[in-house]
């Protein structure tokens, strides 16, 4: 069961030893991300322990301890190794923004940001993603204080039934994090891993392009403050760029825009 999701200040993977983690991760990693396959092989291993490669632990098939870092909160859980990140989020953490639609890594309705990349939560085993920070739609805004990207989705009616929307918003967030000033082609590419059945692509194009210049205003102010505290000089963006090219580039880009707007 989930703990109450306190701010996570402990090192990742704290619920189990690093050695155990690497073993478990190695087994799960070797099996790929197909939940059923993992479950079946784990079951075969349970029936015939000799089948487990020498010196390796086999996880499951019963619940195993898992620690996840979702939206900067730590959750200690016990789940079957075959459980996907999506199902853990929805069933254990009450994070139901990511939707289960195809459950086979195609439709994108379950998109979350894992280690800075948009991924399908239905195609990640929970035991495989214990070290990486996971960000879900719930980490953006809520009604009344929407994130600029969400607000743009509302303003441009980039949603109808809304079931695919959280996945699209997260895919768009990942796109804009990496490509702060996207072209229409970039938007098409960045959202090509998601499907909408109601047909809201026209609004989505507008929403993502409109949101791009508004992204990260609050985040960047915080970043700038932090940079100042760290004694970094980003007048020419060099230090920041050296540390993180994308972020530095975005800051420069933004400064230009600010000047441009007077």
């Amino acid at each position, binding site marked *: 069961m989930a703990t109450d999701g306190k701010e996570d200040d402990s090192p990742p993977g704290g619920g189990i030893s690093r050695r155990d983690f690497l073993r478990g991760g190695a087994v799960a990693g070797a099996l790929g991300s197909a939940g059923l396959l993992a479950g079946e092989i784990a079951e075969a291993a349970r029936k015939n322990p000799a089948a487990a490669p020498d010196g390796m632990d086999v996880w499951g098939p019963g619940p195993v301890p898992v620690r996840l870092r979702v939206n900067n909160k730590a959750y200690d859980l016990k789940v079957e190794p075959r459980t996907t990140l999506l199902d853990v989020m929805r069933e254990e953490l009450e994070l139901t923004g990511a939707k289960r639609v195809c459950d086979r890594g195609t439709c994108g309705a379950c998109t979350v940001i894992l280690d800075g990349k948009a991924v399908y939560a239905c195609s990640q085993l929970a035991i495989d993603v214990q070290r990486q920070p996971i960000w879900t739609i719930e980490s953006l805004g809520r009604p009344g204080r929407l994130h600029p990207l969400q607000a743009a989705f509302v303003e441009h009616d980039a949603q109808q039934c809304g079931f695919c929307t959280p996945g699209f918003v997260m895919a768009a967030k990942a796109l804009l994090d990496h490509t702060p000033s996207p072209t229409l082609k970039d938007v098409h590419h960045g959202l090509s891993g998601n499907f909408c059945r109601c047909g*809201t692509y026209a609004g989505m*194009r507008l929403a993502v392009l409109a949101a791009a210049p508004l992204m990260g205003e609050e985040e960047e102010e915080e970043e700038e403050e932090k940079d100042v505290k760290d004694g970094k000089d980003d007048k020419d963006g060099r230090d920041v760029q050296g540390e993180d090219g994308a972020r530095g580039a975005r800051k420069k880009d933004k400064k230009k825009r600010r000047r441009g707007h007077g």
Partner: protein
Amino acid sequence: MAEPVEPTVPGWPEAADRKLIGQRIARLDGPAKASGNAKYTYDLKPQGMLWAKMLLCPHAHARIKTLDVAAAKAMPGVKAVFVIQKPGAEIQWAFDEVAAVAATSEAQAADAVKAIKIEYEVLPHFVTEEKLAGAPKVDPGEEEKEGDAEAALAAAEVRIKGSYSMPSVAHNCMEAHGQICHWTEPDHLTAWCSTQAVSGVASQLAKGLGIPAANVRVIADYVGGGFGSKFSVDRWGIVCAQLAKIAGAPVKLMLDRHAELTVAGDRPSAFAEIEVGAKKDGTLTAWVSKSWGSGGPGSAGDPPLPYVFQIPNRRHQHSAVPTHKASSRAWRAPNSPQGCYLSMSAIDDLAHALGMNPLDVVIQNLPLTGRLEKIYREELEVADQLMGWRQRWHPRGDAARGPVKRGLGLAIHTWGGRGHRSNCEVTIHPDATAEAKISTQDIGTGTRTVVAIVLADTLGLPLDAVQARIGDSRYPASGGSGGSTTVGGVSSATRRAALNALGQVFAKAAPALKAKPEELEAVEGKIRVKGAPERSMTWKQAMALFGRTPVTAAGANPGPGELTTSGVGGVQMADVAVDVETGVVKIQKMVAVQDCGLIVDLQTTESQVYGSLIMGISTALAEEKVTDPVTGITLNHDFETYRMAGIGDVGELVVRMMTGPGYDERGVIGVGEPPMVSPLAAIANAVTNAVGVRVPWVPLTPRRVLDALAANGANGGKAVA
């Protein structure tokens, strides 16, 4: 005592008096959806909820020989097992439900389903309706006849004969069909349903379970799409309630995607052989068609042929071909995309035989469209300008060098849409906020938003002072969201209820304002005397006259006055690029010009049209349910193989709504279906215009384009001597 108010016949406000109606207003539940805050049935988890999974028959036609659920009952976590079809039952389509299990977790339920032992006697099946000659059974429909089609065809100056085909496609709602059933008392059920018919499903559940309808409550706050596939409670709805009863706990049963794509949505296939005759000036004179198609074991849809144009001499006959496939369901604008595609393809082929621009052939025949003639004429003019049709159109076959050929195609369409039966209860609170209660549902169309807009505009209150309460069968009954009847029904009922509430307020306020009730109006948060705005009181002052008791009034559709009518027209044009070496079709641009009477919310209305273009592009380029003739199973029952258009596939989209005089006074008419009718036909005609030969099968996959080119259009509509 206040003077009684003379009942006035309700109408819609004049253009100058509409503050919200017709504006571009963002859907009110947009923030909840974009933030992931909106809870759909799939997202809910009442305390102690169990998960259900079903055993589905893997054969298209079979008899159950033996069924043993004992091992499943003994599996860990299992709380209920329900046999849906017993030994001896004959299964008529693949993935039909046989038994169901409810367990503590979804995985346990799935494991338990695997433990069910079952043997089938596999029976012969038929799933290939495209060749009428091979069908074991055909249900011929009645012949429709007008004038003397054969004589007119023989006398026609130009005539063509062609065959055109379209397969069945799936609804493929993002939120699968399903529900959560919770018995609050032994004979009281609450069900959260992913449905497009809240009121209707409540009574279906009651009937299926043998309990009083008054004991059933259905809730659908948010619904992840329906498109016509979610009117019924379905057998799995009853099964879910039965499992919950046995287990003594709430049960969630949502279809897996492979079931959703196989059994929970299907637009009937349609095939036709068509002959059309015309005068040399393009005037249509004769039509003879034979069509067939399948919608599963029962009757298939009967596409309207000829579509839109009432050709004076015509004969048409449709046959339903029963197959071992799941029953078809209403798919946006049932039968019309088929009728439009089949008809407009033939008329486009005729235009080619005439050596005419198809736009001229359509215009020449507008008198055959009846009362929509004027609307079509205006829309064709607008569409022509938006597409640049007259400057850019070329005769069939792009003469440009290189493998990529451009082409234009067009189609026109109609739909009914009169508002359905609907009831609304409006309450105005002492603090001058108001709410409308109506047991409708918002399946993504913007229903919640239009109810609020009509309520606020009628009461002269800001949008944030009103609430639209929908999605609960305890609210006044309202029809299902189908046939583009919802917006007309709910906005009319809300308007009448709000006017009735307003009548009570005017009656109370009139003496204080030294006026007659009928001299008052509610504008900008005030009740005031018409023509004398200085004689006014705020809404709060008006409500203070009622003390602490809110004002409540009801309204219904149909009702006094005509707030909703029927019959809309639309025109669409497509611009495509086709690579004749690879066969790949790319949409460059689509233009949709659409009428739907008085628009309540311009933004969500346009969204319906954009959505139709995109769904239409998807069906034109990619969508097709492929059923394996050997096993009778739908082969492409996942998102990977049931292909749909993505954001990069839809080209530039231009939507223009027709509004103002000639449109607004027809009242509110729905728009979910009409723009869904033309895209397939317009795109198929554009591809033909680009490559120079008819591709007579949709979807227009690279293979079909290349096949048609290789056959030099031999299968398309051809001029006959």
